[in-house]
């Protein structure tokens, strides 16, 4: 079983290379942001690996269901290789040469099965734009050897007809939600249900992984924090008792005071001169 996966991983190499090239096309980030955050998600069942980046071992015995990173990678091309744990890079089971990492992006690279059960690598660009105050972002990625699915929250489909290797996303009220995955258009539960805690100001990325045929369907989750926004304002008073600054009557009073002083002074002066 495991060996057959390895063979399939090797076959998937060419696909992976193509997929990497595709990332650059849709993440033309600002020129000044040269560094990208890159996470790696392992969604191939029963296949722990070592991960090499540019010939250097970066992840040791990386297990299915784990998420590594984020790594800060300078914009550029990278050679990535996966080996069986402990094996030399020469006997890599999957190699991707000159994978293009664009600048200023947040990327998740998923090693997973395609719809037909072939191992492959798909890079996803993560939406790390700010969410409104009180909201959380939910992103679901179909990276399992399974047909099209619907994602339900509290029994109601929220994302429909999601296929491998695509994603669906939305900003929802932060909080807890009971979610499950069903075969598209049916009530046949494929994964779950599970309690999702969607924390405000974060993106929760849920990957459906494994194989329906192999009965290894599962989920891997990745969370990106720091996407929160501040409230629009803090309105906290409409009484006016604590108002500072001065009202119109203050100017009237001050004006009257000055006039009285002047008037009184002039009168005194004229009175004195008058008596002389």
């Amino acid at each position, binding site marked *: 079983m495991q060996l057959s996966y390895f063979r399939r991983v090797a076959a998937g190499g060419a696909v992976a290379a193509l997929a990497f090239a595709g990332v650059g096309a849709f993440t033309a980030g600002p020129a000044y942001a040269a560094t990208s955050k890159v996470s790696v*998600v*392992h969604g191939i069942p029963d296949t722990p690996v070592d991960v090499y980046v540019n010939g250097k071992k*970066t992840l040791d015995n990386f297990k299915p269901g*784990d*998420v*590594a*990173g984020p*790594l800060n990678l300078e914009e550029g091309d990278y050679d990535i290789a996966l080996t069986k744990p402990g094996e030399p890079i020469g006997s890599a089971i999957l190699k991707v040469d000159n994978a293009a990492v664009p600048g200023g992006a947040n990327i998740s690279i998923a090693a997973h099965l395609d719809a037909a059960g072939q191992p492959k690598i798909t890079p996803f660009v993560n939406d790390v734009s700010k969410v*409104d105050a*009180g909201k959380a972002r939910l992103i679901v990625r179909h990276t399992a050897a399974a047909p099209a699915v619907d994602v339900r929250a509290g029994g109601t489909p929220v994302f429909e007809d999601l296929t491998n290797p695509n994603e669906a996303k939305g900003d929802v009220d*932060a909080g807890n939600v009971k979610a499950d995955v069903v075969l598209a258009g049916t009530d046949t539960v494929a994964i779950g249900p599970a309690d*999702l*805690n*969607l*924390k*405000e*100001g*974060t993106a*929760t990325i849920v*990957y459906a992984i494994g194989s329906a045929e192999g009965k290894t369907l599962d*989920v*891997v*989750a*990745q*969370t990106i924090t*720091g996407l*929160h*926004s*501040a*409230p*629009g*304002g*803090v*309105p*906290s*008073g*409409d*009484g*006016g*008792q*604590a*108002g*500072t*600054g*001065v009202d119109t009557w*203050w100017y009237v*009073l*001050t004006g009257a*005071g*000055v*006039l*009285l*002083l*002047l*008037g*009184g*002074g002039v*009168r*005194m002066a004229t*009175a004195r001169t008058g008596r002389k």
Partner: protein
Amino acid sequence: MTVRNRGALAALAAGVAALTVAGLVACANQPAGTVGAEEASTLASAPPTAASAPSVPVTAGELPAGPKIIPPVRLLIPEIGVTATVNAVGINERTNDFEVPPSVDQIGWYRYGPGLEADAGSVVIAGHVDSAKQGKGAFFRLRELDQGDTVTATGSDGEARRYRVVAREEYVKTKIPLDRYFARDGKPRLTLITCGGPFDAKARKYRDNIVVTAVPV
């Protein structure tokens, strides 16, 4: 002394009295002013992240669990006579504003931000300065707080945590750097917010926000 002279003296006295009253009122109505602004902004700046950690963090991709947050339930500020119940509040759906509790003797903790357990970021509590219908609010005298005053926040775990006021700032509402006060990074701090400044009687709104920043003792 002539009648004329007496009249002039009276006018002078009245003038002096009027100006004295006006002067006193002007002093009393001075905006609270700002102290410790620099310290408050320093607290908000996040420490530089460690340059390229040698090893890559690996985590099990489990579904995120409910975070363990300790909400404040009670706030005590002896200097200005505040003993108030703290409610966990969020965002007003319609206005996108902080949902300050409608009852002016209660105050609201921003439940999306850090709780008292947090080792980083700003715990935000806002309260009414006053209300047209209910009169003075819990934070009526917030603008009187000064550096060194003590604030005690009790958490849902029963533990009382003491904070020392380091800054009091006044901002026109359109210019207040809310991102800084609702930050989830930077040094751990307690941020108290209410309204202040000149009151627009027609719009029934204060022009400014008063912001008090305190740090754990």
